């Protein structure tokens, strides 16, 4: 066991395995990229020739334009609401003295763990009853609920990364609760809030199941449109649209990663 050669071989083996897992995770997602440049009129792999015609078709498509607009119209406010409520919940549950904080924290992230179809089936009749099925308000509510845990998790982690002494200090220095939040807490948790917002928006931008249940052809989002197209017209325009979606999502996650990094710089003398 202590043979260094054996250890070397073992560590190479582990590295190779890790690389394989990564390839397995990423490669299927990337298969879509060559497909989108296909010269063929249906989805086939490998594509017979190169062309940009599907990106052109995508750019010309009124359906896609409306869907992208819808996705943004739903995603931005949903991310905003999720950020506000998720941050407030994290403040209450991490810094507050509520009884049953553990249980409440578990409830907060429940929507993330429960199958989305359950929530969708539950929301559908309620929204029908409220008369907001198919409207922006309906899908906005649904996405806010589902995106809130993402913000809750990132902000709670940011709050736990430093001792509450900073807030106590601010108060003794004359800052009331609002000023303490504005000038001390918020700047300290800012990376967590921004990363949470990006996650929330990326989530809404990609979400399909609730979109199927809660939107109608006028309010449908990009994922729903893609899904509908997949059902009856298998042209590479889907691939082109998917690649655009992929690029948008990946760049948002990259921004989030950069912010999470700057936030990871520990303040001096954090916890006591």
């Amino acid at each position, binding site marked *: 066991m202590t043979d260094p050669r054996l250890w070397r071989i073992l560590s190479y083996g582990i590295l190779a395995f890790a690389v394989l897992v990564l390839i397995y995770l990423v490669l299927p997602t990337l298969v879509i990229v060559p497909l989108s440049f296909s010269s063929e009129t249906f989805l086939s792999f490998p594509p017979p020739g190169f062309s940009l015609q599907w990106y052109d078709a995508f750019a010309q498509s009124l359906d896609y334009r409306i869907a992208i607009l819808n996705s943004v119209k739903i995603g931005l406010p949903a991310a905003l609401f999720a950020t506000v409520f998720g941050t407030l919940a994290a403040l209450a549950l991490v810094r507050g003295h509520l009884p049953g904080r553990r249980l409440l924290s578990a409830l907060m992230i429940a929507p993330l763990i429960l199958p989305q179809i359950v929530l969708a089936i539950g929301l559908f009749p309620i929204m029908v009853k409220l008369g907001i099925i198919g409207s922006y308000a309906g899908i906005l509510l649904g996405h806010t609920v589902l995106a809130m845990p993402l913000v809750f998790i990132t902000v709670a982690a940011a709050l736990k990364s430093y*001792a509450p*002494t*900073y807030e*106590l*200090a*601010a*108060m*003794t*220095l*004359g*800052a*009331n609760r609002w*000023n*303490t939040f504005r*000038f*001390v807490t918020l*700047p*300290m948790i800012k990376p967590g809030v921004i990363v949470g917002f990006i996650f929330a928006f990326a989530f809404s931008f990609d979400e399909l199941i609730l979109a199927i249940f809660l939107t109608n052809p006028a309010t449908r989002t990009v994922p729903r449109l893609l899904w509908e197209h997949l059902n009856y017209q298998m042209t590479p325009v889907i691939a082109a649209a998917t690649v655009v979606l992929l690029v948008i999502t990946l760049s948002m996650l990259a921004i989030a990663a950069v912010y999470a990094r700057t936030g990871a710089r520990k*303040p*001096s*003398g*954090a916890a*006591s």
Partner: protein
Amino acid sequence: MNVHADLTPDHKVIAEKRGALVEFGGVTKTYGPVTALRPTSLRIEAGEFFAIIGPSGSGKSTLLGITAGFIVPSAGMIRIDGADIVAVPPYSRNFGMVFQNYALFPHMTVAENIGFPLRMRGVAKAEKAERVARALAMVRLEGLGDRRPSELSGGQQQRVALARAAVYDPLLLLMDEPLGALDKNLREEMQEEIKKFQKALGVTVIYVTHDQQEAAAMADRLAIMRNGRLEQIGSPRELYERPQNVFVAGFLGEASILPVTKTSPLAGGFAVAELAGGGNVEAVASTGVGEALCIRPECIVVGPDAEQTDNVFAAQVEEAVYANGSVRYRLRLDGSGHVVNARFSTRPDLVLMQPGQRTKVGWARRDGLLIEGRPET
């Protein structure tokens, strides 16, 4: 901070008396079944430097937190210059507080940190800049205003925390182990600085520390705390020379504390006590009937001179430790087997005793104190 600069005549009267008179009346804090602070009453004079020492978990930070306002007492009142402040939120109390880890805001520069309390008070920009500059000068950090706290040394951060807590001229400064994170030399230097600073401002200070020497060196009066209770309050000298119980005696310095079984009074405030395990001693009956005898190490005479004292015992040296011009002996008394500690300064020609050597120890009866409580071990 700016006490002596640009005061108008009416301000001079206030400047005479900058510190607040602080009175605690039956202040108590319980957390469910845990009592963090037993009913505590205490009066701290205006301009006084008051230190609180005690072991970990004894309730020091709780008392300070209640004073600062971020811990709500379960009962009791706190009066500042006669007015009850229990219902006043921390941000309206106008006290300064220095935390052990300084709690400097990492996202603000040094100048922004010091300016923060002024900003919260709506002080105009120009005046703010001026007062921050003066505060920086006072703690000798001119030119470092644009740095981030993380770019400063521990001692510099400590100074910034002090400047920030004092820049708005609070009447009361609370410090919770402000020097705990510094090394010994820097700590001593900062002790002097804080003391000078306090004298210049005339501010009342409540200072919590683990370090008894620090407390004794800085405080006008100090309190020793245990299990949420103030065991004894007094000047550093009073507490050292006239401890009321075994805990206080053992906490300060390295007293010899011996158990006694029986005491009978003598004339003039003295008593005869029988040591557990045998032997009689004469001592001061300071707090009535006590169960323990306390003798300070510098009062114990070792060697032939001991024969001249009131209480003489034959003993064996167990340990001899030399440090910087003084020597400390651990001696075991014959018969009763109790251990006493002696300490005195040495001269270069003095021959030290070795462990195992036999000798005589003794002390004057006025140097032995009969105190309350049962010695440990």
